[in-house]
């Protein structure tokens, strides 16, 4: 009798969780309770990182420092050109009366070293809506490219779905020629699929896929994946295309939360603006 009652309750909860937003408070409440467990579990990994930092030899640090300084120099010189190009770009966009690109706000967060659901690709980050105005669907990136988006925001932590999750799809375009496609996760580490492109599509192994900004979740222009396999079989309607994420999905410890910047188009309101501002 009690089992039937609880089963009915579970099914109600699952339906509510799947279709609506009502159980968000229940999840947040329990998430606060279980956050200490997640935190404690991730402590050993943090501790190893810390000891590695604390006991690194002087030589290693010096080599690291040299390397970083060289990299910094290179990046600075690129940045000099970039400011000029950005100004030029803005100017040209003004001439074309198209929308302005504005800067995006970012926040650094850390991943907790815990494993979640074995059947999906989900990670926990140590920032929640206590820290900042995070929202559901917010993109996260690492230093190299797009990692995924937030699916649940709790008071002290949030969970994000990686782009390799089988339930994840992301609008992308080929950087070389602007060909639009959708990159779908496959559930395996380091594998994305690009379905529904015809056999004669202009896409090659090694092409860089960047986010296209369609769908209003990911801002345009972030590197997403590199094509690793293109198989065309005339017997099949579509080419089989696979790609590898650019971001280090299983190695990054620090991630960036991005607030996409949206500005109005000259003729009409930016369709993405509504979606971003609607969520608290």
């Amino acid at each position, binding site marked *: 009798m*009690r*089992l039937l009652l*609880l*089963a009915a*309750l*579970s*099914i*109600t*909860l*699952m339906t*509510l*969780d*799947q279709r609506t937003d009502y*159980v968000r408070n*229940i*999840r947040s409440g*329990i*998430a606060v*309770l*279980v956050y200490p*467990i*997640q935190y*404690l*579990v*991730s402590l050993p*990994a943090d501790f190893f990182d810390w000891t590695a930092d604390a006991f690194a030899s002087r030589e290693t640090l010096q080599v690291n420092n040299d390397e970083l300084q060289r990299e910094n120099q290179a990046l600075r010189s690129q940045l000099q050109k970039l400011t000029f190009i950005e100004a030029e770009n803005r100017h040209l966009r003004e001439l074309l009366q198209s929308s302005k690109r504005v800067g995006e706000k970012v926040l650094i967060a850390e991943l907790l*070293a*815990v*494993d*979640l*659901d*074995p*059947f*999906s690709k*989900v990670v*926990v980050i140590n920032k929640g809506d206590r820290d900042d105005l995070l929202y559901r669907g917010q993109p996260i990136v690492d230093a190299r490219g797009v990692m995924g988006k937030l*699916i*649940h925001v709790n008071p002290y932590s949030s*969970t994000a779905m990686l782009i390799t999750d*089988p*339930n994840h799809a992301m609008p992308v375009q080929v950087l070389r020629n602007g060909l639009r496609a959708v990159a779908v996760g496959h*559930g395996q*580490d380091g594998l994305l699929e690009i379905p529904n492109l015809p056999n004669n599509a202009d896409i090659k192994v090694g092409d860089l896929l960047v986010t296209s900004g369609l769908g209003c979740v990911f801002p345009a222009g972030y590197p997403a994946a590199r094509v690793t396999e293109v198989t065309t079989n005339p017997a099949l309607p579509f080419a089989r295309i696979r790609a590898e994420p650019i971001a280090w999905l299983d190695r990054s410890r620090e991630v960036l939360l991005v607030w996409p910047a949206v500005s109005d188009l000259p003729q009409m309101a930016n369709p993405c603006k509504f979606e971003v501002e609607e969520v608290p």
Partner: protein
Amino acid sequence: MSLTQHHGGWVITLSFLLALALSIVPLPGLMEMLRPEWVTLVLIYWCMALPNRVSVGIGWLLGLVLDVLRDTLIGQYALALALVAFLTLHLHQRIRVFPLWQQALSIFVLTMLQNLIVLWIKGLTGHSPDFWSILPSAFTTMLVWPLIYLLLRQVRRAYHVV
């Protein structure tokens, strides 16, 4: 109020917390598939050893916590673990007298049932994982059972949990 005095509720709670922690300890790559269902093991043990204390409701609550911990659909593990607790409570007198290896086989069946429910719900709400991907964890759960059983029995006797 029952006639017997209840002792050592904290031992049960602590074992559940440890099981929850173990079920999210990071494992490298494919090892993740081999992770035993610690929470299920501990729940089955207490259902079997102290059926008057651990109820279906506790299994359900534990499942709810596991749902949030693993960030799955709320109610998914709650339903599965409530069912596992229910079956164990119904069969506890039989399973108790089984030799260890036969107990382990029943654990395999119960874990498969739990994994099947999870698989079924995943299939209903989105991408369904491969059926074969749920076998390894049920298998390791079965292998770990004798260990957990002996360990928790020791703990239960040492702390007089009744």
